[in-house]
């Protein structure tokens, strides 16, 4: 039982990263109809940025946690203005291809400067111990990651459902033409929303730095898992993407807990679930059927 709780906890932490990345993807997709292939590369930049800030500038994890997402959000906004917007009127596949090319550039740029080996990054002093929550000792840093991820997801939900900004963004997402006709300046929100989604990926990256291997390819395979996650949840659905992220993280951890022999299954599980979802509900568990892209 204790073991099960421990695996459940680890699964939630793993799911937290998937959920944060899927959330960013879904927010961007909702507003721009762009599937950002570079999301994994941005995650990597977040983690690498934290490492570089620590070793070359001397800024601690806490600074990185604030600075990196903001910097990457600005980078994302510039990116949206300079290139993504130019392809906005075309088939979404073109922006998918564009961000794929960008991924290659970002990965190789980091690789040429820092090599492919992983860089060590320690969790901050305060969070290096464990927390005793009764059943067993939770590593404090992982608890922090989980709390942060849940807080961010709830925060985004609150922003979207309870604020005026969120209302405008939701209206623009669901009925762009109608919103424009009603006098809402949809275009004004495109760039900030893109930046916000990119910032979320950056945040996930900084959070990942102390517990995942920091190297130029850390986001490369992860992004494909996140794609499968959003197909499962339904890309148009923000709730679905987050829920699917946590669920996949959980199930992966449980299968992994079964032992060595199950390593392959825990890797391909997400794709098998995706296949099942495609058979059963092609639009995704929470996706709506009237919006196939």
């Amino acid at each position, binding site marked *: 039982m204790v073991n099960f709780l421990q695996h459940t906890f680890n699964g939630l932490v793993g799911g937290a990263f998937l959920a944060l990345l899927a959330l960013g993807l879904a927010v961007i997709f909702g507003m721009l109809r762009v599937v950002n292939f570079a999301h994994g590369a941005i995650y990597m930049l977040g983690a690498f940025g934290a490492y570089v800030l620590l070793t070359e500038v001397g800024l601690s994890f806490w600074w990185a946690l604030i600075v990196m997402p903001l910097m990457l959000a600005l980078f994302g906004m510039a990116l949206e203005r300079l290139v993504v917007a130019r*392809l906005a009127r075309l088939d979404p596949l073109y922006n998918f291809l564009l961000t*794929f090319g960008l991924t290659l550039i970002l990965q190789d740029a980091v690789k040429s400067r820092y090599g492919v080996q992983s860089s060590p990054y320690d969790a901050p002093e305060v969070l290096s111990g464990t927390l005793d929550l009764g059943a067993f000792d939770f590593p404090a840093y992982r608890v922090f990651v989980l709390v942060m991820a849940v807080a961010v997801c709830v925060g985004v939900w609150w922003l979207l459902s309870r604020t005026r900004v969120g209302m405008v963004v939701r209206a623009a997402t669901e009925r762009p033409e109608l919103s424009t006709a009603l006098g809402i300046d949809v275009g004004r929100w495109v760039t900030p929303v893109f930046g916000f989604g990119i910032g979320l990926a950056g945040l996930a990256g900084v959070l990942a730095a102390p517990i995942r291997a920091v190297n130029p390819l850390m986001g490369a395979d992860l992004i494909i898992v996140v*794609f*499968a996650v959003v197909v499962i949840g339904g890309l148009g659905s923000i709730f679905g993407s987050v829920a699917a992220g946590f669920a996949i993280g959980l199930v992966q951890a449980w299968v992994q807990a079964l032992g060595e022999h199950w390593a*392959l299954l825990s890797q391909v599980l997400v794709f*098998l679930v995706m296949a099942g979802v*495609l058979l059963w509900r092609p639009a995704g568990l929470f996706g709506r059927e009237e919006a196939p892209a």
Partner: protein
Amino acid sequence: MSEQSAPEQETAAAGSVAVEDQAVGVRAEARATATGTPVPAGGTIVPRWLRWALVGSALVVALWLPNGLYPTVAVDIACWALFAVAVDLLLGYTGLMSFGHAAFWGTSAYATGLAAINWGLPFPVAVLLGALAAVVLAIPVGYLAVKRVGIYFAMVTLAFAQMVYYIANQWRSVTQGENGLQRVPRELFGLDLTDEYYFYYAALPIVAGGLFLVWRAVHSPFGRVLVAIRDNPARARALGYPVHRYKLAAFLLSAFTAGLGGGLFAIGHRFVSLDVLHWTTSGKAVIIVVLGGIGTLWGPVVGAAGVTRLEDWLSFAGFEQIGLVTGAIFVLTVLIFRRGLWGTLAHWLRRR
């Protein structure tokens, strides 16, 4: 069965204009940005004599290639040309962007390598077996993937290809994991094909056969239906064409062609590594198609030659971060050169 359950089917039947616009796929863009006339699938505007002249000069170039280039590079160009044409059959003629074709290229590479190593088959037979293995894999993948269109299709194919990658990575007893399959033999009735120069000529008929197969399919009634589906799936369905089945058939044919390329690649390099299944390989094939020109059969061939030559040149020059260059070329192509090399040429010819 699947025809009724898929969402795209139902929505399209509803006849909503918005849905139709989204489902048209890449070619919708060509119409939006080009001068206003959609590019016909076969380039029928080109006069017949010009087309024969093109085929003739292509044959001459193909026969001359290993004399002008390092023969290994010539073999690579031939393999990638097959791969890119396979991807273009889906992207350019069916309106489906597969971002997971490395699964078929790589599966065939492994199957061909294993058949050649374990059974000592003549290499064309091994390549054929490899391509058939790719088709077998493409049946379930294609069946599931054609339930979605557009960007989802790209994501789904990418995800399935990644699954194949993980399986190959873990299934060490067969794939040798990180070490890869080594010393793949090049058997052909006792002929000595160790020299790349002669192997190129031995492989050329397979390449020509694969390209002819796709050309034949595109210019057949079957190909016409594919183009109709690409341009207006709702109308194709209303006319009574089982859209999903046509898409699946195109998917299988594409997997077969990619498999021919992958099998030859394995024999050509005498080595198969996990790279053949990685998503960067799928991406490279799409890059080649876009750079060469979506929806043209010559384009992917030209693109394959260009990209392979460039990569060879870069690695020869000791440049390690090839992704920087290919990524930049890709970004620029997508931003300002969406017609691609061949598409631009055809457009320019048409205007005169």
